[in-house]
């Protein structure tokens, strides 16, 4: 059986990991917001989204979080009229990625907020551990 404070640290760490993976995916989306295909009519970069799920860690008896999957977003691509573009189809339209910068930035802020909250919990659990250790010092 695990010490509950150690468990708290582990759970917090799983939260940090999940949120940083999310931030990584957001960065990927933002970086590829203008990535088109190379051949006429080909598909551009597709926006990715992370999904989270909670998992009961049997050994720790704790609800850790993990990234369930990184999926492609199903919204349609934007069409832009640009006949000279290598990826333009016969009507002169280029498929642009379905990345919405606003949504990505909002997602980034949420990931940031959740990351900070996890960090705060870890900090407090550490403090509690050191308070226990401090009891051994004769004051």
């Amino acid at each position: 059986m695990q010490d509950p404070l150690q468990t708290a640290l582990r759970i917090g760490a799983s939260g940090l990991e999940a949120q940083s993976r999310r931030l990584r995916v957001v960065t990927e989306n933002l970086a590829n917001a203008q990535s088109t295909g190379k051949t006429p009519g080909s598909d551009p970069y597709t926006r990715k989204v992370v999904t989270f799920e909670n998992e009961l860690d049997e050994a720790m008896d704790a609800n850790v979080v993990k990234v369930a999957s990184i999926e492609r977003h199903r919204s349609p691509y934007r069409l832009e009229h640009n006949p000279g573009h290598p990826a333009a189809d016969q009507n002169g339209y280029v498929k642009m990625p379905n990345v919405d910068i606003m949504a990505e930035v909002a997602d980034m802020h949420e990931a940031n907020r959740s990351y900070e909250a996890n960090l705060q919990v870890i900090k407090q659990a550490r403090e509690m551990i050191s308070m226990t250790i401090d009891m051994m010092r004769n004051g």
Partner: protein
Amino acid sequence: MTAIYLFNVVSRHNQWLAVRQSTIASNVANANTPGYKALDVDPFEKVLESTRLAMQATRLGHMIDGGAKAAAIEARKSEPWETSHSGNSVSLEQELINAGDVNRAYRLNTGIAKAFHRMLLASAKA
């Protein structure tokens, strides 16, 4: 000399607080998991009542070492402040307030235990 239960109460309370902290940690970690319902532990009074200081074994694993005792403290659904569209009922603000409470109580407990320990030592030295 009458038995001093203080150390017992303090350690049990700290045990309870530690379990609460790990529950808070799992709520915060799952703050963005769809369908996750926030958990909280039973109030300490209830845990204390059910164990009554004499530490009756009301559940399997009560009297064994530290960790097993913690498992006996049951988590239950907490009353949520908000529930988002995804069915997640974790409110980060609420969790951080709870974490602050836990921290403060833990500090108080360790402080009391230390002070009491000093008193016992003083009487032993005299």
